């Protein structure tokens, strides 16, 4: 695998095209805002990451974080409108996987990222929440979260740290 210098651009020669780039380059894809499409995209991304030498643990982290942010767009930004499209870029950098999601659905409420509620502390089954853990998981596992609404599009950037990678620098 080629050494990477932490350049902010995820572009690599040969990583052109709208779909999945070569192993060491950025992964780019556009998917419909629909749960089954999210599932297919995650399976594909996971395969690409493992093929690029990312550890199973790190690939699992990426899969979970991306599942949560993509499902959030499907459920809230597009509210089940499967005509919506989500653009996703994942660029391997020394500091981790730099991910960017772009969609033209509804803006984030209040124009800011939700905190998500904390872990369950009640043991009364009837009082347990059945949702809301998504943002908590995102905040727990991702770094450098940033959200902006630009020209009618939601742009969410985040970084997934790589823990177990002995990459040449």
């Amino acid at each position: 695998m080629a050494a990477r210098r932490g350049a902010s651009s995820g572009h690599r020669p040969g990583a052109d095209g709208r779909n999945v780039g070569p192993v060491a380059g950025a992964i780019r894809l556009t998917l419909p805002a629909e749960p089954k499409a999210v599932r297919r995209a995650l399976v594909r991304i996971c395969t690409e990451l493992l093929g690029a030498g990312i550890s199973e643990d790190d690939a699992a982290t990426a899969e979970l974080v991306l599942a949560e942010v993509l499902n959030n767009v499907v459920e809230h930004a597009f509210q089940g409108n499967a005509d919506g499209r989500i653009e996703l870029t994942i660029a391997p950098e020394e500091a981790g996987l730099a991910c960017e999601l772009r969609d033209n659905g509804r803006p984030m409420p209040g124009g800011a990222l939700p905190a998500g509620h904390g872990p369950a502390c009640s043991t009364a089954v009837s009082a347990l929440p059945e949702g809301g853990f998504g943002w908590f998981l995102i905040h727990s596992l991702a770094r450098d979260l940033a959200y902006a609404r630009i020209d009618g599009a939601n742009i969410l950037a985040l970084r997934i740290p790589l823990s177990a990678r002995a990459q040449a620098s």
Partner: protein
Amino acid sequence: MQLKTEDRGDVRLVLVAEPRIDAAIAIQFKEALRTAAGESAPRVLLDLSEVRFLDSSGLGALVAAMKLIGTGRRLELAALQASVERVFRLTRMDTVFTIHASIAEALGASPRLTDAG
């Protein structure tokens, strides 16, 4: 939705023969699990050994199923893969669900009405 059920004494064993419990199947999963749990077994033991991915929607479905199964009955989990176990640990849901390392361990820990010891 692939759920396979089997009764072992007072335990209803439910094998989740799906690789993913995610937003794409969370609602179906909740309903299927409610049906698979039946109405009488005091313990419902979910074999998650084949599940390699669980997201917050899947976790929510499990919590919802636990509520639907009703008071006085228990939904327990067994044989979690590392990626699934981590979701329970991060959300502290591992303190809410009874989680067994394996089905064998879970069945060995089955409370006995004979109360011999």
